[in-house]
């Protein structure tokens, strides 16, 4: 079989070269023909690559279908899943040591993008994509959505990873509670606040809005509102925008919602507590990543199955965005089996596997075409609104965290400031203090 395939292309190659010579006016066709003639999945058969993934349903899918890849390419895969925090530590330490133990690694771009660029961790994938001899002709790179690709692309244009998964922040809402009060899904952040107020009924233990209050975890809530002012927390020149009037407005908005219309105790809520409140029908709206949908539609743990609406984050006073997060797969720059690793990435990010994310509860894939798969959409228990929400959010996606090295410190320092506003501190003072504390950390991180 392998002999046949290795001889086959070369015969076709000759014929197609002839055809290509005739078709001089159609360079695209030539390139495609060449690609078909040279690309061979079995080219690196017998090699063995190491893959390090952060624990997630996506990593489960990769491991479940790994044999498919080995059957296709003859490349053996040794993959491991490590809980997110530990995986980031491991990746950080191994890259720093200069001798990482893995060929393919999964990066959380919203946290590791800048450090990966500065540490020159990853292989630039653009030359690989351009090389038809190692990139399958049906890879269809153009299919990847803009939000994911923007995340994967560094400021100097390098493509460090191929995005696999994009998480959009949106609003889960309880249609039943909305209908009881005769309220429509809000069309602006102002309307959102009015709706949250109207839906809050402490005597029944029902609150209009729930979102993360726990420091660190709460940052994307704030940046979601700030994006409504058309700003991120840092501008393109690297200047902090965290004490601007817009940032203060966003912090006040955060405080008002979390203090007045949210369940008691949200100051300590992470996504799971918010999810519990929402799933038990005790919160009418919940702002978080769309990746948390699966349990919400699971009758075993949720009381709101079939009543959940999926709303795009409403537009703010000046702009309309959805805070976005993304994961990518890339090749370690120190790897000795880069081409075999590239084969793995092509397989992992192909349409079949991206579709599996949708079918098997792995969150929102980075390829656009999978959402057009009507069969999957109609078969999904999430319903068409969920898909529409993703497609709409994808058009307006913007990073929910700053692309800097000390992301975790940023989340910590500003997370504490936001939490303090919930216990009565003044948002302007808190943000000013936090900005002053964080500015030197940011400056130091870019030095050396």
């Amino acid at each position, binding site marked *: 079989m392998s002999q046949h395939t290795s001889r086959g292309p070369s015969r076709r190659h000759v014929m197609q070269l002839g055809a290509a010579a005739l078709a001089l006016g159609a360079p695209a066709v030539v390139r495609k023909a060449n690609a078909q003639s040279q690309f061979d999945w079995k080219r690196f058969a017998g090699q063995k690559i190491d893959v390090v993934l952060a624990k997630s349903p996506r990593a489960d899918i990769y491991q479940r279908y790994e044999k498919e890849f080995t059957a296709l390419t003859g490349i053996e895969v040794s993959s491991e899943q490590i809980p997110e925090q530990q995986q980031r530590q491991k990746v*950080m330490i191994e890259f*720093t040591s200069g001798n990482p133990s893995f060929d393919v690694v999964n990066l959380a771009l919203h946290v590791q993008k800048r450090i990966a660029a500065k540490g020159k961790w990853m292989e630039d994938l653009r030359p690989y994509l351009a090389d038809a001899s190692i990139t399958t002709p049906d890879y269809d790179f153009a299919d990847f959505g803009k939000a994911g690709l923007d995340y994967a692309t560094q400021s100097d244009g390098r493509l460090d990873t191929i995005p696999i998964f994009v998480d959009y922040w949106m609003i889960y809402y309880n249609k039943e509670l909305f209908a009881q009060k005769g309220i429509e899904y809000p069309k602006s952040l102002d309307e959102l606040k009015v709706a949250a107020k109207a839906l809050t009924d402490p005597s029944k233990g029902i609150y209009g809005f729930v979102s993360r209050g726990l420091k660190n975890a709460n940052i994307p809530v704030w940046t979601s509102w700030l994006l409504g002012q058309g700003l991120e927390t840092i501008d393109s020149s690297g200047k902090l925008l965290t004490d601007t009037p817009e940032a203060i407005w966003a912090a006040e908005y955060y405080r008002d919602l979390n203090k007045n219309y949210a369940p008691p*105790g949200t100051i*300590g809520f992470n996504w799971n507590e918010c999810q*519990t409140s929402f799933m038990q029908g005790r919160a009418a709206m919940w702002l978080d990543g769309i990746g948390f949908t699966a349990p919400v539609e699971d009758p075993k743990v949720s009381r709101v199955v079939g009543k959940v609406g999926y709303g795009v984050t409403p537009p703010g006073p000046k702009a309309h965005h959805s805070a976005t997060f993304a994961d990518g797969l890339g090749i370690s720059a120190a790897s000795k089996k880069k081409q075999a690793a590239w084969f793995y990435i092509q397989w992992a990010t192909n349409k079949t596997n991206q579709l599996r994310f949708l079918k098997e509860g792995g969150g929102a894939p980075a390829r656009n075409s999978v959402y057009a798969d009507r069969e999957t959409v109609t078969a999904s228990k999430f319903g068409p609104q969920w898909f529409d929400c993703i497609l709409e959010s994808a058009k307006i996606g913007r990073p929910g965290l700053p692309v800097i090295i000390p992301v975790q410190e940023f989340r*910590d320092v500003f997370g504490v400031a936001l939490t303090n506003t919930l216990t009565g501190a003044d948002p302007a003072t808190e943000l000013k203090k936090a900005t002053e504390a964080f500015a030197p950390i940011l400056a130091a991180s870019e030095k050396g």
Partner: protein
Amino acid sequence: MKARDSLPLAFLRSACVNGGVTAGETREASLGKGDDATAQSHGFPSPRVPSERSAGSDSGGDARPATPYDFSRKYWAFAIPAVIAILAVIVFPWLFTLYMSTQDWKIGGGSAFIGWSNYAILFQDERFLEAVGRTFWFTALAVVLPVILGVAAAVVFHREFPFRGVLRTVFTMPMMATPVAVALVWTMMFHPQLGVLNYLLSLIGIPPQAWVYDPSTVIPTLVMIEVWQWTPLVMLIVLGGLASLPPEPYESAIIDGANAWHLFRHITLPLVWPYVMIAVMLRTIDALKVFDNIFVITQGGPGTASETMNIFLYLQAFQFYKLGYASALVVVFFIIIVLLSLLLLYARQRSKWNA
């Protein structure tokens, strides 16, 4: 000699805490060794000590026959494996930590010598100072409450009553549970809207509490978990002490007309005090080091309301990757633990003499 001897012991002891009853007994024995070693002012524990302890002679150090030890050099070689092991796993990491604490060491950013700067920054870092205060507050509560309740429980379980064995087993169960699993279960029970605790309170007409979701109640709530989990340990230690008490003082006191409180206050308590001090020491070291419960339940929040030294250390080292700064913190933390242990050892010696 004393400090060096007791520190590894202290760590060993705290490492055994999850080991249940057997670990408790081993610990007793090892403690006995350490103390008697200091009392006789030589470094080598008498091999006979454990058996003497189990026979119940607690303060009989002077009566022990003085065994002549052979200190000649021919035996020194036998110590070499132990010395190497200690150098490798204790002394070297220690010195390396000291070295790192003088560096501006960031993973991914190289390192540079900066002398005492890490320490200088540390002692001006408000969050660190607050964390130190919080750690002591948490520790004080998490030592005193389990010790009081544990002694009370021991006195109760020392009496004969039906189903005592079964009840005692039930009572010690929290101690055997896996800390992280326990923490997750508590987290669910604390949920302000849907947790079972607030439901139970509502049955008796008490309004819902925010538990760990409010900066003002988070520390007491975390202490509550500590109490629930570690009171049984104190009880086991004190029960061991009670079992070894002679009946004669009680008999004569009763003849003299003492009531139950008098018996407890003037006979039981002074006699078991050395055991209580062991419990206090173990609890102090453990409470200072608590990480799992706090990290799983609150991650130091809300805000920084439950951020103890350990949580702060974890943030600096493993979230922010400031290894130099974190090493300085480790050094300070270590000194604090050593000082506290010495203080407690001193108190324990005192309690022995008084008894």
